[in-house]
């Protein structure tokens, strides 16, 4: 698609900044759809929290609030690093120097690794919960919650929402880790890495969004005890 007379931007755009504007705007629209996607589940959460507040408190007490806190911290650090990497790229674009490349790449690598640490903690928590019989379904350990409505099954709703919402978030994390790892590798290898600036900005925006979703999920599940 890229025309030979105009190597810095693609055909329908007038200028590189026009193309950048379109990429960022497009991603923002995409993030709006993501908000509604998670929003549907948050509506479900609100409805059942309202109906069974005690079940949600009980459920929340079984989660490890410190692990959740550590996960939050890990994500926020990653967000900071990717923001710095993106800033470096923009500066590199201005000065036409390539010295920024190495520093940006290792920040991206650390961000991706922090994402993996986050998932590790999360999946360890899943493992523990499933071991305790708290995964929803026929084997759910409802005898632990017999004083709750529907002979304990109201607590099952808490765990159902927990696994659905954090699971959906984890899926977004996996995509994000692949994207951040991918753009890091691409910048490392590219002959003109400054031309990957738009892609990096868009990926960084996505990564920040996935972090913000967690900023909502953490209090909704871990802090309502």
């Amino acid at each position, binding site marked *: 698609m890229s025309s030979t007379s105009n190597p810095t931007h693609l055909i329908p755009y007038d200028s590189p900044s026009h193309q950048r504007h*379109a990429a960022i705007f497009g991603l923002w629209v995409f993030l709006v*759809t993501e908000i*509604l*996607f998670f929003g549907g589940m948050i509506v479900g959460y609100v409805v059942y929290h309202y109906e*069974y507040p005690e079940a949600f408190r009980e459920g929340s007490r079984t989660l490890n609030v410190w692990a959740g806190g550590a996960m939050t911290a890990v994500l926020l650090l990653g967000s900071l690093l990717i923001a710095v990497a993106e800033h470096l790229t923009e500066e590199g674009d201005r000065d036409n120097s390539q010295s920024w490349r190495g520093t940006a790449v290792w920040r991206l690598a650390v961000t991706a690794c922090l994402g993996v640490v986050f998932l590790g903690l999360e999946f360890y928590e899943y493992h523990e919960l499933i071991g305790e019989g708290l995964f929803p379904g026929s084997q759910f350990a409802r005898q632990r919650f017999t004083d709750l409505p529907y002979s304990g*099954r109201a607590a*099952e709703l808490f765990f*159902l929402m927990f696994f*659905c919402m954090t699971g959906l978030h984890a899926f977004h994390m996996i995509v994000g880790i692949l994207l951040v790892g991918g753009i890091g590798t691409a910048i490392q290898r590219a002959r003109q890495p400054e031309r990957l600036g738009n892609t990096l900005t868009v990926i960084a925006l996505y990564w920040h969004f996935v972090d913000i979703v967690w900023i909502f999920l953490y209090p909704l599940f871990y802090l309502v005890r």
Partner: protein
Amino acid sequence: MTGGLFTLGVIIIGGVDTGWTFYTPYSSTYANTWVILAATGIFINGFSSIATGLNFIVSIHLLRAPGLTWFRLPMFVWTTYATSLIMVLATPVLAVTLGLVAVERIFGGGIFDPAIGGDPLLFQHLFWFYSHPAVYIMILPGMGVVSEIVPCFARKPLFGYGFVAMSGLAIAALGFLVWGHHMFVSGQSIYAGLLFSFLSMLVAIPSAVKVFNWTATLYKGTIFLKTPMLYAMGFIGLFTIGGLTGISLASIGFDMHVHDTYFIVAHFHYIMVGGMVMAFLGGVHFWWPKMTGAIYSEWWGRVSALIVFLGFNLAFFPQFILGYLGNPRRYHAYAEGFQVFHIMSTLGASILGIGYLLPLGYLLWSLKYGRRASRNPWQATGLEWTTPSPPPTHNFGETPTVTGPAYDYPPAHRELVIGEGEPEKN
């Protein structure tokens, strides 16, 4: 297409027994069929809707030609914009809802199962939060097409351009606030019902703004009753009937009476078939010379437009009466007294079918045997008519600059020839 393959595949291997709405707990607990597979197909189609809407929104914001300001946009672009907003805002909610149904079926939790604490009404709320706006996804582009056709064949600028543009956005916005009118008898709170009833009636305002503006565009125009115009006029009439019965249905008392009867079926089809399909056919006939470079037979075009209009009314008008008299929908048997209306309806549907098959024939025929179309066979305004028919891959040799408003139609002389093929002058 992948999504379509899933849903078509489901129909072939046995279908789903949930009804099209997938209401829980039928779909989540009791259905014994291919619900998850069907939901997967719908989920994939949802992705394509979202991507399409996103593409349109970004393009309309950032890729307009120089001089093409927002208030010089053709109305079809405005309605596409409104449609795209609905697609990106509503579709994700349906996707996540179907996801929850799938989770419930696979893992056996009880999100929507009242027996273990879930709330089946939650499903209906989430479902209609998408599925009501979805009908506006269908009708808005049709309104855009009609807004293109009417000025062209009345040879007058569109009356009240700004109002027509904004009423499209208003329909899109209000569309998000009326989903509860599908749930008047579901057991939702009576206050919610009152509010949804009121908000649903509000939709009539922007819809009427459009109808009145199209009519005002016709006023003192030089009207050419070519095929696209016949469809557009059909749209205006049928959409008005569909819209007015919509207001009746928005009032709770009347809705209780005709709920789940043929009245609903008739109302829905007056909007979707009388409205959207008429506009679609009008649009196909309007842009056919542009899309394919071929001129179809005007005589056959007019005949089939007439057949479609008559067949449609014969098929669906009796259903208003049937519904009002109490004939429920989705039953294969009915009381004897209703038979005459059912016969009329069947006859109308057969005529309608002929009306739909005819264009298939003469449009395909025109591809091979029709006269070649000039750049602008209708003498219409708008950028698409300045390129050759059919347009080349890169639509414009150089980026055009727009200097005037849309629908800058000169008053025509009676003898103005439109709809004729002309030798290509390049």
